[in-house]
């Protein structure tokens, strides 16, 4: 028995001059939820495309379920389920017909076909809508149908490329319940990409990718230890003066960003009361929190991952814009 179900060794993918995936190596254990976290353009989709045989690596090797993604394409394809970043349904057919098509091409035995379709549709709460043409589904329904389809043939590994992009928080939570339930029931290995921090937090292990390179890979807890300290954000009446004061008083370098000022201290609960009492510049608001994956990313790369939380419309627009360009 192997102790990994996905193994990637020195994988490189170039598009002309651009190195989209730059010599990455990692492995994923069976039953693990493995998260790929990185900003747009980091190389997440490109990696998935290689792992699912849609695209060939420039160099390096990748194995999925014991099969080589270049030389044993059809075995790899039979082992995996996919939810692509961009929509991939037949909009002219009903939800049910989309699933029947999928069941046929994935050789789901006729004896269990209808029963399984019913099961996944009910799981995704789409059973009542099964006869409706997909064109008339909402964005969330389409996403759930794609998830149902990805599960239909009981794949060993499920690839989810930004599975909740552009969905409202409620639908996102629901989809996550399904994903966790699936792992519990079927032991499916889940490989997901995201640029939502809270989503990455749900993975057993996270690989942080930036400009095609893996910059860190560990559990969420341990990644956060890289930052170590607590994070304090303050808004003041004069940020420039406040930076100077923090530097002189505590020998800490504060950053100015969208939240005003941010700096790190060891055990923030103890620091904060004295800070508020003795600070000379007028404080408008204070926020104390433990490090997030955002802070980890910032620490490792010097940049923030731009979040699109709450801006579902913009994200939807991106999804569609991309589709129209292809």
């Amino acid at each position, binding site marked *: 028995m192997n102790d990994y179900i996905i193994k990637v060794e020195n994988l490189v993918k170039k598009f002309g001059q651009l190195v989209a995936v730059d010599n990455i190596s990692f492995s994923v254990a069976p039953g693990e939820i493995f998260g790929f976290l990185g900003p747009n353009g980091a190389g997440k989709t490109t990696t998935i*495309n290689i792992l*699912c*045989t*849609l*695209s*060939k690596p420039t160099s390096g090797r990748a194995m999925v379920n014991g099969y080589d993604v270049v030389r044993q394409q*059809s075995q790899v*394809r*039979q082992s995996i389920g*996919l939810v*692509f970043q*961009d*929509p*991939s*349904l*037949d*909009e*002219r*057919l009903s939800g049910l*017909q989309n699933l029947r*098509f*999928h069941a*046929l*091409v*994935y*050789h789901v035995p006729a004896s269990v076909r209808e029963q399984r379709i019913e099961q996944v549709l009910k799981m995704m709460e789409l059973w009542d809508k099964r006869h409706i*043409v997909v064109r008339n589904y909402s964005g969330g329904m389409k996403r759930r149908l794609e998830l149902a*389809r990805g599960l239909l043939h009981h794949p060993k590994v499920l690839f989810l490329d930004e599975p909740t992009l552009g969905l409202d928080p409620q639908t996102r939570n629901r989809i996550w319940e399904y994903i966790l339930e699936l792992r519990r029931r079927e032991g499916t290995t889940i490989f997901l990409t995201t640029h939502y921090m809270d989503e990455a937090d749900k993975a057993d292990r996270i690989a942080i990718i930036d400009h095609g390179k893996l910059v860190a890979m560990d559990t969420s807890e341990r990644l956060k230890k890289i930052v170590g300290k607590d994070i304090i954000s303050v808004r003041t009446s004069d940020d420039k003066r406040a930076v100077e004061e923090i530097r002189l008083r505590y020998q800490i370098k504060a950053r100015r960003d969208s939240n005003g000022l941010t700096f790190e201290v060891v055990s923030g609960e103890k620091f904060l009361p004295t800070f508020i009492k003795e600070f000379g510049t007028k404080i408008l608001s204070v926020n104390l929190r433990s490090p997030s994956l955002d802070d980890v990313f910032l620490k490792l790369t010097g940049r923030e991952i731009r979040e699109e939380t709450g801006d579902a419309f913009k994200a939807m627009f991106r999804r569609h814009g991309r*589709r*129209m360009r*292809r």
Partner: protein
Amino acid sequence: MNNLRGVYTIWYRDILRFWRDRIRLIGAFFFPLLFLFVFGSGLSSRMALFGSGINFVQFMFPGIIGMTVLMSSFMAGVSVVWDREFGFLKEVLVAPISRASVAGGKTLGAATVALIQGTVILLFAPLVGISLSPQMVLVLLPLMFLLAAAMGSFGILLATRIRTVEAFQAVMQMLTFPMVFLSGVFFSLQDVPTWMSVLAKINPATYGIATIRQVVLEAPPDSPFGINLLGHTMSLWNNVALLAVFGTAMTLLAMRSLGSQE
């Protein structure tokens, strides 16, 4: 076995989509019939008869059948381009079926839909004074299917290389009209200038149209409805072989083109 299932599934989806959109059928025979009755009747009084009691509408009728089949199957490739734009092509390309079976299934789907449309036109034969025997229909159906598969695979080959629906339609229009006009749908290729005759003989559709016409009008290959290729009178089987070779070549190229796609 695996491949057959792939071909069947891809074909089945195309038929399902056609059935959902069957209102398209009306559009598909509206134009051919318009051509036939308005254009045909308007001109027939001024056109010489072809001897043996065949009038212009009767001459055009098999050509219109061929044209319907040709245009429908050739344009069917657009579904590949649509699937790419809507992302569904990825679902197909990542499925555990061979790319060859995808191209094969698409070709058969295009040919089946075109055959249905051609058959609808065939039903109008009595209206133009042509009586078709069951034997003739039995010969015509596979002929139409062959022409459809040949042109369908050509369209699909182009579709695997073109990224947008707009570009595909532009290319198709540029090819379809010359192909229809230079295939003898509307006039006999007997007394045309040499350049036109050469182009018509390069056009694979010509051989399909001529064969359908010979069967419908019960004319021999050495009649004005036949084709003389480099001094050789093309028999029905010659034409069939030529179309089959062309169709096979296009299908193989389409399979290869799709197979190398990322």
